Structures are given as C-alpha cells and as structure tokens.
C-alpha cells in the first residue's frame, strides 16, 4: 500500500482535530498544556498569535474546534476548548510588553482598511509590525464591527472587547471613525498600495409578510436593533416581544429584550428545535432565562390589533429530511396567533456594496458578491482584497480572523511585486517528548472525568442586567481540572519502519485498538476500501485517515487508524526499539498553514 506522506505536515496537522477545524489553526493542545503548567500569559500569547482575540473568542467563538474534538469520539463531550481560551485571557499578566511593535521606519506602503471588524483588525495586526502604514475607515464611532454592534454586553463586556482592540489600535493604526466610505473609486484615487474590504454583512433581512405596512413601525431588523442597544440609542423594550428566526442573533435579541424590560419574550422559528442555527449553548442559556422557543412555526401575516399591538399568525409545520438531507416543511393547517408589541426579525443578513462602483473593474457574481480568488482573497481589481463576512457572506469571527491572515499575506506579497498565489508555507518540526525510559515531557495519563460546566451568575439576576456578563468563566481550579481532559493530539505517534522488530507490543497495549500489523496489500485505491475487514476493529468514524507504514522486515505493513488514538504514548512506552516515538508537532508559521 501507499505509505502515508510524512514529509509534509498535512497528515500530522489533520490528526490535531481541533487545530485543523479552527479556521485560524490555533494550536489548541499546546495552549491547554500551557494552562496546565499555569503559564497563562504564554498560553494567551500563543492564542493571540493565531486568533488575535483570545479574550473575545474565549466568550463568543462559534467553536468549530469543539465538535471536532477527539474526546467526542471516545466519550460524550468535547474539552471546553473555548472557555479554556477565556482562562488564558482571565489569568494572564500584563502582556503589553510582549506585543509586537510597529518599526520606527515604515516601509513606505500605505494600506486602506474599510471597516474595523475582526478581519480588518487582523490585517492591521499582521501588517503593522512589517512597517506598513494602515488607514482604517469605520462608519461607527468605535472599532470592533459586529463584535461591538451585534454581540450584547452580557456575553461580551465592552472592557474585554476594548482591551484586545486597543492592543492593535495602539500599534499605530490611523483610525478614521464615524467615517463611512461611500465610493471605492474615490478611495482608490488616494493611491493606496492596497485596499482591504472588511465591511461584514451589515444588511439584515426583512420579512415583508401581508400586513407589513400597517405594522412596520414596530417591526425591527434584529441586528439594527442590537446595534441601537449597543450604542445606547435604545434603552427599553415593550412588555411582549416576538423574535423571528433561530440563529445566534435571534438568541441575542430575545435575551437583550428581556433585559430591557420585556416580560413575555418568545422566539418563533420555522425549523425544528434541533435544526436551529443557534449554537446549542445559546439556546440553553436563552431557555434558562425563561424565554420560550417555539420551533416549527412558519409566519404567515402581521395584523395591527385595535389596542395598537401586533398579532402575527403562524402555521405549524412539520420539518422532514430526504436522503440528501434537504429539508421540506409540510404545513399542518394549524394556525397559531401570537400578540406582541415589538417584532424583531433575525432571519439572516447579507453583504452590501452600494458604495462600490460597478464600472471600476471590480467584478461581482450573480449574487452580488465580489468575485474573489479563494486562495488569496484578491478581487478582480488586483489591489483590492476582501475578507470576513464581506468576502463570501456571513460566517463567524474566527473565519474573519483567518481571512485577515490570508489577506495580509496576499497584500504583503502584492506590495512587494510578487504573485499572491505563490504563497509561503509553514515549516514544521517534530520534537521527541522522550525524557527517559518511560518518561514523557507531556502528561500522558488519560483523565477520564466528564466535561466541567462553566459557572454563571444567577439566572434571575442575569436577565435583569444588560451589561453584566452572565458567564463567570472557570475559576483556576476548574480550569486546571478541565485542561487535564485534553488528549494532547499534537503529540504525534511517529513510526520508524527500520527500527521495528514486529514484536506486536504496541498492537497489544493500545487501549483503542488503533495499531495493526497486516500483510501488505498490492493494490492501489482508496485506503478505506482496501483495508475494510482487514483490521482488528472496524473504523468508527471517517474523521481521520490511516497512517500507513512502508514494508517491514517480514513484508508486513503497520496500519494505524488515527481515528481514536488518545495519544497516551503506551505504544512508544512498550516499544523496545524506539520505532514508535511521541513527537510534538510544531508549525513555525501558523498563518501560512491557512489555505
């Protein structure tokens, strides 16, 4: 069989499920290990290097890492990766001295950033230390983008936000706030070397059902309303509020409404409860605050009642899925009427580029999205780059950060007359963790306890205060305990064929039956098909690849299923010749691994 290519880092990076799943490839196991050593500042800086906003993301990240966590494949719940990230921010010392600084002499290149959200800020952070002049244009009064305007303070306090934004702004960004850009052409005429557009997806979708005109005054777009609350233009909500939509914005709307005085808050959503786009923990928190979530309700019409309130009619539906997972909503004919004083519509948001002239060479596709090179984020106007939600539609903060890194690399190459397609790659290193006969530089004992819950303030109290953060974060003891659950997936099992004497010790000791010694298969094709029925245990999930060795002395090959390996190091401990070794994967330039 074809030996697994271990001359590049691809196989090894994939083994680190959380890191691979993180759009910014944050080295999760390494920072969790630093937490266990109580090196919080080091853990914070490692995060900061790759995801730029550890304190913010440690509270409000979409956590693509957690469903990927290996722990979900050997037990129920992932390591609380996101909340451990917050721990690094909560317990760090003053790290300002450790931040990179812009050089005194600039390189003479001027970059304009449109928008001051996570994507633009990441570009600024990556380019300022290289000597670029960064001019940032923002329509709002403060930086942060949707992190400030759409995420309520009870999830993300403004002081946490300001701290991490200021790390970047204080590096020397020329910020132009309250300064909307209304013409890209004009901006281009200012002869910037490159322009980065990170304007997000600022346009909330309307829901113009019958009766809309009558009720228009009391129907608000969710994100606009949240923004009004954030900038203190709105300070109260009426008694009865209905939120339409089932995403995280809907959850933020309902919980904010409750805090602004609403007593009867309902979320009505067309999909089933399970299919709602909101993160499970957001739904749980909303329900804990006594907000009614009513799934399977499809809105039909608005009606103005005689007393001035609004009545919305819904039809109950049944959602079902076909084989290719396409959803069908079947109406049941049952009509439900809900009275309220305010309707918040949170059914999605779109990008908006009325300020980009269509005749300046920047091409758009049929869905009014800019045509971009996915690898470089370069538009059809070579000096214009996009990132964040504005690039491909709404995603999340961590994706915006990843875009920022990619665009910064592209801009740097472009400004030096190089092709952005010819990208640098990361160097990788595998460092043996062996300290003695059976001693490792990492804690290889598997901790079997269940995921710990993050403490929060009393729910009754929570739903009354707009600016009080609900989650308290892990205390140090809980953090250290939870950190022990990490399975150290970045400590790779590295195999050297020439040293193996085929004693089968590793095969027998492996608690998860990952290792197999089998006759070589003289066929080419998909490894899953070729190996079916030939291994100790049938593959559990398709998440991970096989690690296949070259031929050994006897003609056998070693096949390790990376799926459920818990990186306990027992294979290496029981190996008499050191054919197995536990080696830490170190990627020197994380940003360059983002493809």
């Amino acid at each position, binding site marked *: 069989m074809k030996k697994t290519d271990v001359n590049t880092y691809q196989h090894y990076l994939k083994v680190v499920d959380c890191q691979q799943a993180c759009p910014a490839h944050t080295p999760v196991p390494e920072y969790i290990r630093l937490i266990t050593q109580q090196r919080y500042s080091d853990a914070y800086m490692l995060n900061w290097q790759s995801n730029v906003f550890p304190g913010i993301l440690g509270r409000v990240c979409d956590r693509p890492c957690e469903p990927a966590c290996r722990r979900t494949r050997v037990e129920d719940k992932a390591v609380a990766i996101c909340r451990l990230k917050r721990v690094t921010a909560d317990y760090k010392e003053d790290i300002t001295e450790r931040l990179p600084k812009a050089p005194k002499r600039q390189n003479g290149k001027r970059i304009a950033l449109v928008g001051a959200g996570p994507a633009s800020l990441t570009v600024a952070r990556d380019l300022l230390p290289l000597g670029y002049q960064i001019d940032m244009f923002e329509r709002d009064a403060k930086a942060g983008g949707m992190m400030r305007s759409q995420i309520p303070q009870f999830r993300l306090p403004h002081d946490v936000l300001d701290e991490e934004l200021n790390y970047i702004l204080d590096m020397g960004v020329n910020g132009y706030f309250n300064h909307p850009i209304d013409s890209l052409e004009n901006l281009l005429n200012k002869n910037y070397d490159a322009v980065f557009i990170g304007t997000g997806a600022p346009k909330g979708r309307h829901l113009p059902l019958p009766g809309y005109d009558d009720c228009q005054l009391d129907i608000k777009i969710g994100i606009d309303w949240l923004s009004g609350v954030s900038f203190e233009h709105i300070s109260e909500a009426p008694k009865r509020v209905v939120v339409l939509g089932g995403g995280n914005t809907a959850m933020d709307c309902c919980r904010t409404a409750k805090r602004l005085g609403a007593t009867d808050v309902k979320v009505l959503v067309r999909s089933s409860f399970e299919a709602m786009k909101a993160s499970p923990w957001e739904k749980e928190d909303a329900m804990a605050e006594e907000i009614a979530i009513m799934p399977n309700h499809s809105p039909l019409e608005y009606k103005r009642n005689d007393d001035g309130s609004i009545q919305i009619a819904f039809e109950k539906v049944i959602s079902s899925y076909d084989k290719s997972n396409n959803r069908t909503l079947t109406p049941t004919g049952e009509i439900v009427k809900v009275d309220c004083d305010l309707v918040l519509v949170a059914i999605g948001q779109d990008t908006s580029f009325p300020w980009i002239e269509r005749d300046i060479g920047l091409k758009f596709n049929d869905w009014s999205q800019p045509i971009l090179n996915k690898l470089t984020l370069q538009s059809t106007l070579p000096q214009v780059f996009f990132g964040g939600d504005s690039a491909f539609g709404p995603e999340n903060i961590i994706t915006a950060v990843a875009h920022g890194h990619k665009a910064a690399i592209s801009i740097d190459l472009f400004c030096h007359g190089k092709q952005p397609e010819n990208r640098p790659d990361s160097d990788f290193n595998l460092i043996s963790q062996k300290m003695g006969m059976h001693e490792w530089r990492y804690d290889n004992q598997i901790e*079997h306890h269940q995921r710990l819950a993050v403490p929060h303030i009393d729910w009754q109290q929570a739903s009354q205060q707009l600016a009080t953060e609900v989650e308290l974060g892990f205390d140090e003891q809980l953090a250290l305990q939870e950190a022990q659950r990490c399975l150290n997936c970045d400590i790779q099992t590295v195999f050297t064929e020439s040293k193996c004497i085929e*004693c089968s010790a590793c095969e027998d000791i492996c*608690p998860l039956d990952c290792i197999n010694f089998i006759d070589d298969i003289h066929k080419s094709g998909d490894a899953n098909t070729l190996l079916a029925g030939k291994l100790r245990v049938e593959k559990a999930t398709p998440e991970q690849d096989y690690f296949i060795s070259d031929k050994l002395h006897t003609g056998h090959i070693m096949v390790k299923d990376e799926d459920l390996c818990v990186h306990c190091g027992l294979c290496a401990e029981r190996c008499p010749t050191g054919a197995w070794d536990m080696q830490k994967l170190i990627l020197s330039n994380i940003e360059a691994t983002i493809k």
Partner: protein
Amino acid sequence: MSYAKSTFRHPNLKVNDIGLTYRDYEGVVSTLCAGCGHDSISAAIVHACAELSLPPHKIAKMSGIGCSSKAPNYFLGRSHGFNSVHGRMPSVTTGANIANKDLTYLAMSGDGDTASIGLGQFAHVIRRRLNMVYMVANNGVYGLTKGQLAATSDKGARNKAGDISPFNEIDLCVMALQLGASFVARCFSGDRQQLVSILKAAISHEGFAFIDIISPCVTFNNQANSKRSYDYVQQHISTAAISDFVPVKDEISCDLPAGNYDDICLHDGSLIRLYKSDENFKCDDKLHAINMIEKHKVKNQILTGLLYVNPAIDTYHEVNQTSDTPLNQLREDVLCPGQRVLSSINESFR
C-alpha cells in the same frame, strides 16, 4: 511510566457470546521488558479466551517462577490464579485439578521452570494426563537473572554475555511426545494468528495439551547471533500445517479455500482444520512428529504448528475415577463420610 491503560474503548469492539469484549479478559499493564515475547503470548491468551467466550471465573492461571510465570498477572485479570514454587506448578495444578475438574487450567511456565528445576514435575504431569494447557514461554535464557543460558538453548548457542552453551538442548516437544502428551504444538509468539488458533484448540482439547512457545527475550537474547531473536525466528520458521480452529457453534462452511487439509474432531465437537504445506505431514503419529522436528533442526529450521494430537485419550480423572463433582460442591457428609466408612476401608486392608 504508565501503570494503567485508558478505560476508553473502541466503540466497535466485538462482544462475545457472554457479552464481554477481549478487554474484559486483560490483566494489569505488564511490567516485563518492553517488547517481551511473553506479552505477546498474554495477548494471544486474552484473545483466545475471549473468542471461546470462556467465563473468566471458570479459568485458573497456574505458574511457577520466572519472567514467564509473572506473566499471568498480565492476562485474565478476573480469573483465579496460583503462582507456585519454582518448578512445582505441575503438582499444584494436579491438586487443583483433582479438587475441581470444572475449571480450565492454563499453566504458564518457562524454560528454567520446566526444563531445569521443574523437569521431574513436568515429566510426571504429562504422564498423569492431566487435563490442562501447559505453555512454556521459551526464550533460551534465564531473563529474570540477567540472561544465563537455559537448558533449551541449542548446543553452541551464545548468550548476550558471550557464554557458549556446551551441552545438547532439551527439546520439550520431543519429551512431551515421548511421555504421552495428547496434544503437542510449537508456536512463535510473533505469529499471533497461529498461536491464537492453537491455543483455542488446546483449551478445547480434553487431555494434556503442551505448547512450546518460542518467545524472544528482547533484553538478553535478541542479539544478532541469537537463535531465539525476533529476526532469526522470523527467518527460520517453518510451518508444516496452518491450523484453523472451528468452534462447535460455527457451521463448517463450504467456501473455505481449496487445498490440502485435514479435519480433526475434538472431544467437544469442535474442529481443528489443518492446511498442510507439506503433503506428507500427518499429526496423528508421534514418531512422525519427532522425525519431522529433528529433520527441520538439521536444516536449521524451526518447525511450528500443531505437531501431534490424539483427541480420544482417557484423562487423569477417567483413569483414576475421581469425583465428577468439584469438591467444593460436595455436601460435608459426602466429602467427610465419617468413622464408619473409614473403619470399613481399614477393615478391607486387614
């Protein structure tokens, strides 16, 4: 150093007839040297017992002294065990066996424990036809005392310290054949498939089953000039017939690979199916087996596989007409019938 395995398990592990996975048959984590052949034997025993769905509480692990005899701690953690005096495991097993014939006796011994200090006991337990599986983990050296040459080392063999074995070796398989063992096999700890199927057959065999298992000592006898090293054995192994064990419950399917095979029916109805690589090989003939072993030795080859089996031989219990019921299940008045019975016995001798 890790003292425990994670309790996490692969979700697709096979469950046997009594609802256990092979991991339920494991013992504690081995403290033998990493790469020891004995650990491989332990794993084979674990798999064999799991595949046969033996209830762990119906197995007794018997051993003497030595690295081999430590090994029972590393398999069948939920079974009974007796770690006896050096070389005296056969006597203790005999006693246990007489007291309770319902248990499966798995005895693990080594080349010192069997071929030196315990040679006399070894000879007599074979002669007594005790129903047990007697395994010797044979590495040719005394590993526990740092690698002196054992009596099973070939003449001229060198150990790691450079000592040369001046005498002829004791071939335990040949001895077992001569003394009347009804099941004799030689295996290599590195050939898992063969070892597991022979173990299953040996456990199912009613009578004395002997398996000499070549088990490299990775610390004291795995050097380049050793004839018990992984490399040497892998290169010089020869198998007369690959055996496959077919348990009673499995139907014998007709789509087995075509070829030359013999079926041997065991006492309990299970089958040993032998795929013969040598057409002239037969395993119901002691003399033939001894001949084959010696012929291979001349060619510098190690003959492995099932060498001899006689499925229909009376065991110790049948010969001696001992109690069918384990003694621990007999009522006290049956077990100790009292003065009247003793008197009548005494009277019979007057």
